[in-house]
């Protein structure tokens, strides 16, 4: 039995989508066959109009359909912090956490020489004029070797500009048990531990934000 070319064509196009194997593509194609024409047209239309309308924000390289993205054009966001992330999806993840009110900068990748990705392939150059003396830049690339390398590279570029450069914390996920943590993460959780008691000498008042840890200071690593 030969399959109709337009069925084969649809299955082939669907199986190009990431995370959709040939079997899922086939199931999707049969599912779509059963849908009313309007639904298919709406899906096709959504694909085309997304491609037509969306582009990257010229300031932060987040995805937008406007001249500037929603964060860059919101004066209520804290203009004094920039959080640097790998991908537009990371912006959504951070926004969902509700813990951040500053600006973003989306690199669209990580340094990976063996995949031909050097600094010039990432949106690094346009980040530099955005950074002011004393401004904080949070390096929120992934905690992989590639994410670390990209963060270290940026750190070297940003320090001479007088930026306060920080890195998101490595450690145990919330709800975790030591027993189930891998040894690398556990090691980082120990070396990155934060002082929670007040240093006896300094009479600074302890900050009282809701996680009870905001005012912590790091302690030297015991070996």
């Amino acid at each position, binding site marked *: 039995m030969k399959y109709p070319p337009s069925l084969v064509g649809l299955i082939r196009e669907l199986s190009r989508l*990431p*995370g959709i194997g040939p079997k899922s593509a086939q199931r999707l194609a049969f599912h779509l066959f059963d849908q009313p024409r309007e639904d298919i047209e709406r899906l096709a239309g959504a694909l085309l109009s997304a491609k037509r309308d969306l582009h990257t924000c010229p300031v932060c390289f987040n995805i937008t359909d406007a001249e500037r993205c929603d964060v860059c054009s919101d004066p209520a966001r804290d203009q004094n912090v920039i959080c640097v992330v790998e991908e537009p999806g990371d912006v959504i993840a951070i926004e969902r956490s509700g813990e951040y009110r500053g600006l973003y900068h989306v690199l669209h990748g990580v*340094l*990976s*020489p*063996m*995949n*031909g*990705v*050097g600094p010039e392939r990432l949106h690094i150059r346009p980040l530099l004029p955005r950074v002011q003396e004393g401004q904080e830049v949070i390096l929120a690339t992934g905690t*992989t*070797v*590639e994410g*670390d*390398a990209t*963060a*270290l*590279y940026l750190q*070297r570029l940003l320090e001479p500009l007088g930026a306060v450069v920080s890195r998101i914390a490595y450690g145990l996920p919330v709800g975790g048990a030591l027993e*189930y*943590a*891998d*040894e*690398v*993460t556990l090691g980082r959780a120990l070396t990155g531990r934060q002082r929670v008691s007040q240093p006896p000498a300094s009479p600074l008042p302890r900050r009282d934000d809701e996680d009870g840890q905001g005012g912590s200071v790091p302690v030297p690593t015991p070996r």
Partner: protein
Amino acid sequence: MIRRRVTPAGDIIVTLLTPQGKIKAIARGGVRGPLASRLNLFHHVGVQLYQTPQADLGTVQQAVLEGALPRLAEPERYAFAHLMAELADALFQEGEFSAQAFELFAGALRGVSHQPDPEWVALVMSYKLLGLAGFVPQTARCARCGTADPAHPDPLGGQLLCVACASLPAYPPQSLEFLRNVVRRSVRASMDMPVPEEQRPALWRALERFVTVQVGNVQSWRQLVPHVAAVPA
């Protein structure tokens, strides 16, 4: 681990260079679990694979971290580590047994991570890896005409040319000594005789040409090794 790729479904596909040869495997859903920490680029891991006859990729069941080299993320080391991994990936085939290749590669990564002069480690180890895989630059005779004792750069093939065939001035004596002996002599001996920094760009160009002609395209150095990036592609 010489390659790592995360699929949109959250699987991690890794390429490992092991004493039993090069292996490609998948850790299903790995990005959400403890495997993500262990299966990191350049990590030395012990893995337990489950291979079914049908599937082309083995599945990573368990992974134990044997050693991490976090300093490889530093800008002055990172590109060299990529170059080592990419060279190893290009030079060694799946199913090919090579405990020696594993040892050499692991030593190269350790060297790039810990030595004060990672560039020199990368140059030496690149030639050693090439030699182990059977790619030895011709240094006794001119690559074009066969005349003995050539001393000039070969801008196309990365080997050596005689004065007649050459268009560039001869290599300085240290560079020439290095190119003639690096494959044969011990790593330690080469490490003890570093070529001065100002001579290295020419060596990198030669290596880049040699690998591109003999082995194939390697992306890493075009991007980050400063001396080579200057070369017109």
